[in-house]
């Protein structure tokens, strides 16, 4: 194949393939980015919905607590509040402040509990007027939606509106004068929520501190469960500590969430964070790599397809060449004996030769040439039936030693005629074998013919029989010129000849060894070539002792 053709092949197949591949990779990386963005957005919206739900609950809760506070019996504020605190797990502390740096409750006394002492200390800045209570109108408009609330939240809201300690009053009318508010209070990095109410600008301020532990404890039981194995939704507090998480694995790097949404307003500095175990980015890059692999497979299939077609074409070309040379050599082979036969038969037919000896010689030549012709035609016929698998084998049991002796006695003369001494190397023993006798004869004949044709200069030939457990090895050893190195692998191919030129010294079709090998393989044996060190070649026939033919 010319270089130009090869270059053409590269251009037409490889270049478009690589262009397609490059485009696909670019598209893929874009798709990858888009998917990542989508995943982040989806997570963000999920975290937001959790944050909204928690925020809504907390806000509603605060509203309810303020309503409850506003409904406290003004004549007995202290007892109502204390009672409320004792019964309600959501209330941590209650207080009444006179707006003049003095707390009416809890009073500093011998009976101060440690909790109360800490409470007063915590809000010192507030009660000593260093930080003002916010002036914020109570929002009566906020409506409590309960339809979509889960049971846990309902319970929580029920706690906030639990005001069994006083009679229900219509406080909404008075609410114009009410001021109220919530103070998120950070102390030593912990969040506290303080709600307060005042009936008018001069009346004492009273209120409650929410028990955050209860609030958290109730909120987290409503925290949605994640079904994913590779991500964790977590409620993270102002100290950057995980309050609660839903998800199967341990959060390793709390400071670096995948997505984080603040719970602004209701619980300042708190947030809902989403963490991944790294498999999410792996997963999406997995998509990229998978697609890349697909592209590579696509490319390689294009290229290998091209290579395959190229090889096939080359093979077809070679076979066509071989067949041409086969036809030429076979024609030559047929023509040579035919020429002799025609010549001698013409001589005989013109009846000018009267010498008995000459007549005899002419007839012998015609006979031997026609035999040669028969062998050639037989070989060709055999080959075609072998190729098509139509060859039928007839298995009989016979003694191989006997067979070889018989063969050598018949063909010794032919060897001798070419100046070759034939030796047999076999022990006096029975070598029973069950195989096709006629085929064996053909195998022996082909190999002997090869020796006679190509190795006559060696003067010696040996047929050696050896036995193994299941096989017999019969070696045909000659001292001829041997087989050139480059041809050793190809000699069993059909039509192959060492010298393919029409002017070849030796005649032949290039089918002998191919047929022999095929027959032996069909009979469960093999034909092996080994060069002989001192020059010459050795063909070893391996025959299975007992062939079982498949029908």
């Amino acid at each position: 194949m010319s270089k130009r053709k090869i270059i053409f092949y590269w251009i037409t197949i490889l270049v478009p393939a690589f262009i397609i591949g490059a485009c696909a990779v670019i598209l893929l990386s874009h798709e990858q980015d888009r998917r990542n963005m989508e995943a982040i957005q989806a997570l963000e919206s999920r975290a937001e919905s959790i944050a909204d739900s928690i925020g809504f609950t907390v806000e509603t809760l605060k509203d309810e607590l303020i309503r409850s506070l506003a409904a406290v019996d003004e004549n007995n504020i202290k007892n109502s509040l204390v009672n409320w605190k004792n019964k309600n797990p959501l209330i941590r502390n209650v207080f009444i402040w006179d707006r003049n740096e003095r707390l009416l409750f809890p009073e500093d006394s011998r009976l101060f509990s440690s909790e109360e002492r800490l409470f007063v200390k915590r809000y010192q800045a507030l009660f000593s007027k260093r930080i003002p209570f916010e002036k914020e109108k109570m929002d009566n408009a906020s409506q409590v939606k309960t339809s979509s609330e889960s049971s846990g939240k309902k319970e929580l809201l029920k706690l906030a509106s639990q005001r069994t300690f006083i009679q229900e009053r219509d406080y909404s009318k008075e609410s114009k004068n009410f001021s109220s508010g919530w103070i998120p209070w950070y102390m030593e990095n912990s969040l506290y929520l303080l709600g307060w109410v005042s009936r008018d600008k001069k009346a004492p301020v009273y209120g409650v501190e929410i028990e955050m532990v209860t609030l958290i404890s109730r909120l987290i039981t409503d925290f949605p469960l994640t079904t994913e194995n590779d991500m964790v939704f977590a409620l993270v507090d102002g100290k950057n500590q995980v309050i609660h998480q839903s998800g199967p694995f341990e959060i390793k790097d709390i400071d670096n969430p995948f997505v984080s949404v603040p719970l602004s307003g209701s619980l300042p500095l708190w947030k809902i964070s989403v963490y991944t175990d790294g498999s999410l980015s792996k997963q999406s890059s997995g998509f990229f790599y998978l697609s890349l692999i697909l592209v590579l497979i696509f490319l390689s299939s294009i290229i290998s397809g091209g290579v395959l077609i190229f090889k096939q074409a080359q093979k077809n070309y070679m076979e066509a060449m071989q067949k041409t040379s086969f036809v030429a050599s076979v024609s030559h082979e047929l023509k040579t004996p035919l020429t002799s036969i025609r010549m001698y038969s013409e001589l005989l037919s013109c009846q000018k030769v009267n010498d008995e000896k000459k007549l005899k010689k002419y007839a012998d030549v015609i006979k031997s040439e026609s035999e040669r012709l028969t062998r050639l035609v037989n070989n060709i016929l055999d080959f075609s039936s072998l190729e098509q698998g139509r060859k039928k084998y007839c298995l009989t049991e016979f003694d191989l030693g006997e067979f070889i002796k018989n063969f050598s006695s018949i063909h010794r003369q032919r060897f001798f005629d070419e100046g070759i001494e034939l030796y047999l190397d076999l022990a006096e023993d029975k070598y029973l074998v069950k195989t096709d006798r006629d085929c064996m004869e053909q195998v022996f004949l082909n190999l002997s013919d090869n020796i006679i044709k190509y190795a006559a200069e060696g003067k010696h030939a040996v047929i050696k029989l050896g036995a193994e457990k299941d096989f017999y090895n019969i070696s045909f050893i000659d001292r001829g010129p041997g087989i050139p190195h480059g041809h050793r692998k190809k000699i069993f191919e059909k039509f192959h000849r060492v010298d393919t030129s029409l002017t070849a010294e030796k005649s032949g079709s290039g089918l002998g060894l191919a047929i022999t090998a095929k027959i032996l393989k069909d009979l469960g044996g093999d034909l092996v070539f080994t060069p002989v060190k001192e020059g010459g070649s050795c063909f070893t026939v391996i025959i299975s002792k007992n062939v079982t033919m498949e029908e």
Partner: protein
Amino acid sequence: MDKLNKSRIKFFGIIVFALFFCFSYSHASSDKKIKVVIETDRYVLPAGDLKTAVIKITLDAPLSYDSDKRPPVNLSIVMDRSGSMTGAKLDKAKKAAIEALKRLGSNDVFSVVAYDTSVNTVIPAAMGGYTEYAESKIRSIEAGGNTALFGGVSQAAAEIRKNLNERFIHRIILLSDGLANVGPNTPEDLGRLGTALLKESISVTTIGVGTDYNEDLMTGLSQKSDGNTYFVESAKDLPSIFSAELGDALSVAAKKVAVKISLPENVKPVSIIGREGKLTDSGVEIFMNQLYAGQEKYILLEVEISGTKDNSNIDIASAEVEYLEPLSNEKIKIRKTGQAYFSKNKDKVSASENINVLREYHLNINALAQEKAISLSDKGKTKEAAKELKSSADNLMDFGRKYNDREVMDEALKLEQKAESLEEDGMSKKLRKVLRTNSYQMKNQQTEKE
């Protein structure tokens, strides 16, 4: 009942009392009611100015009901399944939980929550006792991950809350062998969770397994929610502890026990020894979530008494006990007034020691000493801690010898051994747990189950 009236006309008071008892007898037979006894550390108290005394208010719960007639329980078991529980611990815990489940009846409610890094409800609260399905669910619990103790208890409380009505005895049993490291994790936070749960009548019993759990956190949670606490060093004791705990939960004789102790003007409360309670101007308020059948719980109150006359008899304290009878959920109120005799005769006073009160007083003081030793050793003062234990042991031994009280002497010996091992090897994880648990068990009068 009016206090002033009582102090003025003593006998009238007694008659009214008798009437009150008759009235309550009509509700329930005498053996099914809590017995209240008020005693002082001496039968004869020294008269005169400002003297301290110890008042013991004992609540004696009646013996158990018939086994087929008991208040239903609403039980939630919280199981730590963090990585460290792998193996025998978790297996035993599961077995114990299944045994506990088998003991429940068709009226009881049962749920199981397991937690590691996150929390999941293994069996949601359901009525009806043992089923094979429930057993298979418990068996399927596998270990791994961190410990979200707070979340676990919260989830269990949510399961309990599904049936939060007065009919049930609400109880969470928490079993853990490790530190809480997801969510709120300080003893204070968990204590406050306990306080909040107690307001809903939910008690948390904590069982610490091995020597790696946080005993302060676990006992704190129990103490604030009026539950029991246990320390088991090896998992093989788990089933017996579970069964003891369940025995308690199944034999509750009184629920929501509120004790209001009123003191006359010349008796000022100084402190409540051991128990959690609230001092008010005129007395003390104490709340217990439940009393177990046949069990005796008491309150030791240290008071200052002033202005008493020689040879006088005054009402020293009056207790108002209000509780729910667990089967019928009837509210029962008992009032009892304790009197004390005052004398200036020193011989009389010193000869009138009430061993009953003094014994418990010393044991409780001993419990407090153990806590002090823990906090001292936490500050690195191991020697002082050992000294504290030793002196407490000595005091206890003196007391034991004086009254020939074997039990107290044994306790003193045990404590002395602990003091010695503390001095030699420092505060081991195990010793700290033993001290913390014993101290709480003493203060709570939790009967030690072997």
